């Protein structure tokens, strides 16, 4: 088991993950570099997306009315690289039609002097619509992130 990160690191990671939700929900795409690394990659059942423009393209696949994003249940671990941490969260999406969608984020974040930056995000839907097309999140899969 990896070492526990400092509580300040955990809080900074949680803040970055939450800010991603706020920025996406409010269409503040220009601020995504606040929490995404330049080499950010998002992997989802819909494909692979690069950088902040890729994150926007992925989120806008939802259509005219983007769902509200919520992130909960976050765990953070150190990796062998002291400049990188991994996080495993559940996401909850609230749709325009008042329905819920849920799944997992497996994240790799780079620690910088300006706060953590997401380097890689894997989106793994659970339940309706997701059905583990990319497999499901697990401890083994999470701990392979940044290993």
């Amino acid at each position, binding site marked *: 088991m990896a070492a526990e990160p400092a*509580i*300040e690191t955990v*809080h*900074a990671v949680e*803040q970055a993950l*939450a*800010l991603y*939700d*706020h*920025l996406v*929900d*409010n*269409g*503040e795409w220009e*601020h995504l570099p*606040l*929490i995404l690394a330049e080499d950010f990659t998002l992997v989802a059942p819909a494909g692979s997306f690069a950088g902040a423009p890729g994150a926007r393209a992925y989120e806008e696949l939802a259509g005219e*009315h*983007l769902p*509200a*994003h*919520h*992130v*909960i249940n976050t765990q953070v671990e150190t990796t062998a690289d002291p400049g990188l941490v991994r996080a495993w969260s559940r996401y*909850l999406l*609230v749709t*325009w039609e*008042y*329905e*819920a969608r849920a799944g997992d984020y497996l994240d790799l974040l780079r620690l910088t002097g*300006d*706060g953590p930056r997401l380097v890689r995000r894997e989106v793994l839907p659970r339940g309706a619509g997701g059905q583990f097309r990319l497999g499901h999140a697990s401890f083994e899969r999470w701990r392979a992130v940044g290993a």
Partner: protein
Amino acid sequence: MSAAAISAADRVAIRAVLAAYVQVVDNADWEHVHEVFTPEARFAGQPLAKVIEGWAAMVASRPVPLFPHQCTDPVLYAVAPGVVRSWSKFFTVRTDGTITSGDYLDTFVRHADGRWRIRERQASLGNRPESDPFGPSRRSFTTTLWRTAAGE
């Protein structure tokens, strides 16, 4: 973006207040509202006491308890010593199983007793259609607003 100005202990304390708010509201537990808000607090521009009167009337008129709120996604930004802006989200699960979402934008201050309290809260129902029981809504909070002290 730097969050270094807010200590871990303060972050934990502020998040505890955000959690306490949903318990106060969902339980209509108004005698504990002072654990969340300062005495002079304003909610959506209104004095808190007036807002609570409205909530109490709404809760009393409903055949079922208020939909349970869950608070998520707090991001904190120190705007001055002892003053922190918080932008968080909430979702509610309604009695028919449907789910709704919204945002809170708060100004936290360290109260005279040393504990953090909300001095000012704005709430948004996020994006909701015209047919929503609480009325239509469109998002209006921004990163700039979050990082700006209330009233500026």
